[in-house]
C-alpha cells in the first residue's frame, strides 16, 4: 500500500540520479505544446533517406535477411566500411578485427568508454559539445574534464588549454570535429597539434567524425592517419548524417585490434548486434550512395552561406562553419542570456533554436541554429529573428 510509513527506497544509483537531464529535453517539452513553429533546433538531416537505400532495406526484409548478424557486424558491411575509410579518410583498417558495427555512434561511444575507463580516470573533451559526452563518461564512473573552446578560435580546441587540464589521471581525449553545435572544423595543422599532445601525454584519442563527410573545407586525413596515432585512436563514424539515415541507427568504430575486441565483448553482451536490415541499407549507402551524399552536402553548404550572411546582417555574429549543419551565433548583444533568448524567440516569434548552454556552460551567450531545414523556412526564421532582435535593441 502507498501509506507505508517507511520512506520509499531510492532505487536509482546515485551517479545516475546525479546526471542532469539533457538541457534540450526541457526545451523540447515547451516546443511540443506549440504548432506552427519553424524549428532550427533539429540535429538531423531534413532529407528523407535516399530511395535506393530504403529499397535495399525493403529487399533485405523481402528476402528474409532478418536474423542476427555476426557480433562485429555483417562482414560485407565491415569490408565496405574499411574500403570507404581507406578511400575517404586515408585510414587503413582490417574488416576482420579492426572494425565494429554499432547502433549509431552513440553506442560506439558508450562501449569504447566502458572498454577503456576505470573509476576515477579522466576524459578530456571540449565544450561546447554534443550533449551526451559528459553523461556517457559519468556512467562509467570516470570523470569528464571539460576544456573550453572559444569564439576567437572559431571553437577549435587549443593545446594551451589542454595542457592546463591534463593530469596523471587523464586517459582519453575525446574530439568531435566537424563539431556539433558550433560547426567548427579542424585543419590538418590543428589535428597535428592534437596528435602531438596525445602522444606527449600518452592519451587514447576518440575521434567522433560523424560530420566528417559534411565538410565545407578541403578534406584532410583523419587524426588516426597521422604518424604514431593509429595505435592510440578509435575513430567513430556512422550513417545518420552523411546519408540521412538517422532512424536506421547504424554507426561504427575502427581502431586497434585489442580495443575493438574489448568493445565487441560489451556489444555482444548488451546489444548482440546492430539491426540486420539496417546493416543491409548501410551496405547500399556505401556502395552506391556517393552521388546523393554529395548532393546533400552541397545543399547544406549553400544554406550555410545564406544563414551565416543573414545572421551577421541581423547583428548576431557567427563565423563561417567548416562542417556539420549548425551555426552558433552570439546573441549576447541582445542583452538576454541564451535560455531567455531562445524562450522568447519561441514564444514571441515561433522559431525554435537551442540555447548554447545545452552544450556546456561556455555556450552561454550563444544559440545553435541548424540549417538542416529548407532554405524557405530558414528565410522566414531569419526574418522573425530580425524582428525580435530589433525589438530588443
Amino acid at each position, binding site marked *: 500500500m502507498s501509506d507505508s510509513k517507511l520512506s520509499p527506497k531510492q532505487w536509482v544509483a546515485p551517479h545516475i540520479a546525479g546526471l542532469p537531464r*539533457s538541457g*534540450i529535453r526541457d*526545451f*523540447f517539452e515547451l*516546443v*511540443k505544446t506549440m504548432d506552427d*513553429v519553424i*524549428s532550427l*533546433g*533539429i*540535429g*538531423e538531416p*531534413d532529407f*528523407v533517406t535516399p530511395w535506393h537505400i530504403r529499397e535495399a532495406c525493403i529487399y533485405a526484409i523481402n528476402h528474409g535477411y532478418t536474423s542476427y548478424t555476426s557480433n562485429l557486424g555483417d562482414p560485407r558491411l565491415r569490408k565496405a566500411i574499411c574500403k570507404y575509410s581507406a578511400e575517404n579518410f586515408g585510414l587503413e583498417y582490417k574488416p576482420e578485427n579492426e572494425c565494429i558495427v554499432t547502433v549509431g555512434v552513440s553506442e560506439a561511444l558508450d562501449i569504447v568508454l566502458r572498454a577503456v575507463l576505470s573509476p576515477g580516470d579522466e576524459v578530456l573533451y571540449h565544450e561546447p559539445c*554534443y*550533449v*551526451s559526452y559528459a553523461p556517457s563518461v559519468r556512467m562509467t564512473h570516470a570523470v569528464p574534464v571539460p576544456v573550453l573552446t572559444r569564439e576567437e578560435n572559431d571553437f577549435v580546441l587549443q593545446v594551451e588549454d589542454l595542457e592546463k587540464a591534463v593530469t596523471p589521471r587523464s586517459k582519453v581525449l575525446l574530439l568531435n570535429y566537424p563539431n*556539433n553545435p558550433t560547426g567548427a572544423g579542424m585543419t590538418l595543422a590543428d589535428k597535428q597539434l592534437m596528435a602531438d599532445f596525445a602522444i606527449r601525454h600518452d592519451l587514447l584519442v576518440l575521434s567522433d567524425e560523424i560530420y566528417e563527410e559534411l565538410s565545407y573545407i578541403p578534406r584532410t586525413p583523419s587524426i588516426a592517419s597521422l604518424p604514431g596515432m593509429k595505435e592510440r585512436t578509435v575513430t567513430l563514424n556512422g550513417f545518420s548524417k552523411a546519408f540521412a539515415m538517422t532512424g536506421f541507427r547504424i554507426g561504427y568504430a575502427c581502431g586497434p585490434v585489442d580495443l575493438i575486441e574489448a568493445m565487441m565483448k560489451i556489444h555482444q553482451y548488451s546489444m548482440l548486434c546492430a539491426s540486420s536490415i539496417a546493416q543491409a541499407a548501410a551496405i547500399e549507402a556505401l556502395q552506391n550512395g556517393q552521388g546523393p551524399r554529395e548532393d546533400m552536402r*552541397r545543399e547544406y553548404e*549553400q*544554406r550555410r*552561406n*545564406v544563414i551565416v*550572411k543573414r545572421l551577421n546582417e541581423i547583428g548576431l555574429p557567427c563565423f563561417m562553419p567548416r562542417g556539420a549543419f549548425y551555426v552558433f551565433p552570439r546573441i549576447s548583444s541582445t542583452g538576454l542570456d541564451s535560455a531567455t533568448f531562445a524562450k522568447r524567440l519561441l514564444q514571441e516569434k515561433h522559431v*525554435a533554436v*537551442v540555447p548554447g548552454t*545545452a552544450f556546456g556552460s561556455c555556450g552561454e551567450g550563444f544559440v545553435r541554429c541548424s540549417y538542416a531545414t529548407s*532554405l524557405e523556412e530558414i528565410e522566414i526564421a531569419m526574418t522573425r529573428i530580425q524582428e525580435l532582435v530589433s525589438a530588443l535593441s
Partner: protein
Amino acid sequence: MNDDALKKEIVALLRRNARIPEKELADRLNSSAEKIAALIRELEKDRVIMGYAAIINQEAENGEVRAIIEVGVQPERDTGFDTIAERLGKFPEVHSVYLVSGHYDLRLEVVGQSMQDVASFVSSKLASQPGVKSTATYFLLKKYKEAGVQISKDEHYERLKIVP
C-alpha cells in the same frame, strides 16, 4: 568559385527551380546578384539555358492529350537523321524529338487537344513526310513523374522539433 563552376551550380539550381531569385542564387553561392545575372545572361546567350518552363500536373490542369510516337525514317546521304529530325521538330504539335538507339529512329512527344487531334496529325502530317517509313503511336494515360518530380506526394514525415 570560378565562373565555370558558378555556371554549373546555377544550372543545377535552376533545373530544380527556375523561379529561384537571383539574390537567393547569389547568397547560396557566395556571390553577388549582379554577377549571377550576368552569368545567367551568358548561359542564355550560349543557349545552355533555352527557356524556363513550369512542371505541370496535367491531371489538375486541362484535357490535353499527349502521345509518344516512334518514327522509323530513311536517313539522308549527307545529313543522316538531322534534316528530317529538324523538319519534324518544326511542327508546333511536336513537343520533343530525340534520335534513339534501338528498333526505331526518332522518338517524338506530341501534344494535341484530343486523341482525334493527335491521330490526324500522325496520319495527315507525320506519316506523309518524305523519309518517314513507319510510325507507332502510344497515348499517354497517366503521368507519375516528370522532370524529376513525383506527381503524388506520398511521403510525409514530421521530424521531432528539437533533436540534440
